[in-house]
């Protein structure tokens, strides 16, 4: 049952990612990316990371991608054209990328033996209480630094995107 769920959602993630790369209109790519994030959230649930799964839905799929979709709608982005140089790049690049996947897959299979199956429910520390304890005790400094980072990002985004008032 766990393997069937993994295969189903991994297939959805890969199909959506391929759709992201192949679609010509940015809105279709954005919605495919939302599909990838949704299926990744289910995979995080299988791996026992329930807080991360919900954070993925709330932060990534619910806020960042909505921002992307807003920008695409506001800028009225149209479909994209392909040129000759572009196609030559693909003929050279796609085999190299497939080789990269092959090498990584071989190394992973070599280092991690086929045992160690991921059983849903065997990782118990992904709940918000344990993550909160670890975050606020061991990782307090990075947490505070990221809050400053978000503040800087907010100020930067507002300054860059505002209308100039003459």
């Amino acid at each position, binding site marked *: 049952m766990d393997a069937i769920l993994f295969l189903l959602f991994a297939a959805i993630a890969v199909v959506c990612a391929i759709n992201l790369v192949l679609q010509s209109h940015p809105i*279709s790519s954005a*919605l495919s990316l939302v599909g990838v994030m949704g299926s990744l959230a289910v995979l995080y649930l299988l791996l026992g990371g329930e*807080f991360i799964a919900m*954070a993925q839905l*709330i932060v990534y799929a619910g806020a960042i991608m909505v921002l992307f979709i807003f920008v695409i709608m506001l800028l009225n982005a149209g479909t994209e054209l392909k040129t000759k140089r572009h196609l030559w790049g693909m003929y050279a690049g796609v085999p190299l990328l497939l080789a990269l996947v092959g090498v990584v897959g071989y190394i992973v299979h070599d280092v991690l033996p086929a045992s160690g199956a991921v059983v849903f429910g065997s990782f118990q520390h992904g709940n918000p209480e344990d993550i909160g304890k670890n975050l606020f005790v061991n990782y307090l400094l990075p947490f505070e630094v990221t809050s400053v980072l978000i503040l800087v990002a907010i100020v930067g985004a507002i300054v860059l995107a505002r209308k100039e008032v003459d």
Partner: protein
Amino acid sequence: MNFLVLSLIKAALVAFVLMTTLAYLQWIERKVIAHIQLRVGPRRVGPHGLLQPLADVIKLLTKEDMLPSHVNKVFYFIAPFIAVFFALIAISVIPFGGDISIGPIKTAMQLTDLNIGVLFILGLSGMGVYGVALAGWASNNKYALLGGLRSSAQMISYELPMAMAIAAPLLMLNTLSFRQLVDAQGGFYFGIIPRWTIFQGPFPQVVSFLLFVIAAFAETNRVPFDLPEAENELVAGFHTEYSSMKFAAFFMAEYANMVTVSCVATLLFLGGWQPLFPAEYGSKFIPTLIFFFGGAICLYHGANPVRAFDRITLPVAGVVFLGIGAAFLIPIVATILLPLFWFSAKVGVILFLYIWIRGTLPRFRYDQLMNFAWTFMFPVAIANLFITGLLVALT
């Protein structure tokens, strides 16, 4: 009975009750708004217009389903599905009562108790923005696009004060699962005041409750925040180009969102299915008293009714109410029905508040709405969270 079959039965029951509630919520809204405006509301279709939702469903199903030629067909089709899907799935984590046992089956009155239930609801309300934004964009129409973008921007802006208003009682109750939240609100202060979150020390969460209710109005695009979909403002906003079933889907999604948000407010702030005062003082007989009182009024007015057809409908209604009131007295049925009654009563109060405000307040202009979110509600929510955290840490 194994888990899968039991879950399917519970899911079918919840879906049926939810769909009926959504249909009759619209009837209640039309009647209440009509009486606020000193008129009567629907009364031709069935007694007192009770079959009006059925007539509306038939009308929406049999209307011509147009597909305008200039829309983006894929997104035009999936936008209402997305809106309805995320609105309806949120009901699956809402508990309607405690644990019950019917014969040999012991189960909880909830489809699934996630230990991150509150985060789940927050995530789904964030995903509900997609239905609106895509509907506005796919319609290839200036007014729809503007309405869709405004509505999504409003929903996102009010998610922040809503999340902070949710976080404040969570600081006091220390759990994210809905069932544990309600269990932590059991018990009574001084034997009489219930330990609901709005009464609970060290800081009664009244401000959080008000913030949550106001943010919920904006999240569900209801008056006074319904500029993006008002009929006389933007030609009906993001659902301008939709007809028949797809329009019905958006309508259903809006009402389902209302029900979900009222349920969450009840569970977080009003104590879920916990009664108002302890069982020693007779809280078990409150539903019986209310239904008997209603039945008595119906029978009294049925004796000499104002309208002729009420000679039949009012006594029937009176007998039905007396029957329901008597059902609360049977002990086996009462253990199931009592928590359900308290939960439904509290959700009903908040839904009535929604409908009452729709009939009473004018709507905000869009820039007033966004100003209100960012310059008033957001600082108040931060201050409330800060004070709550401080008081919880000090005690």
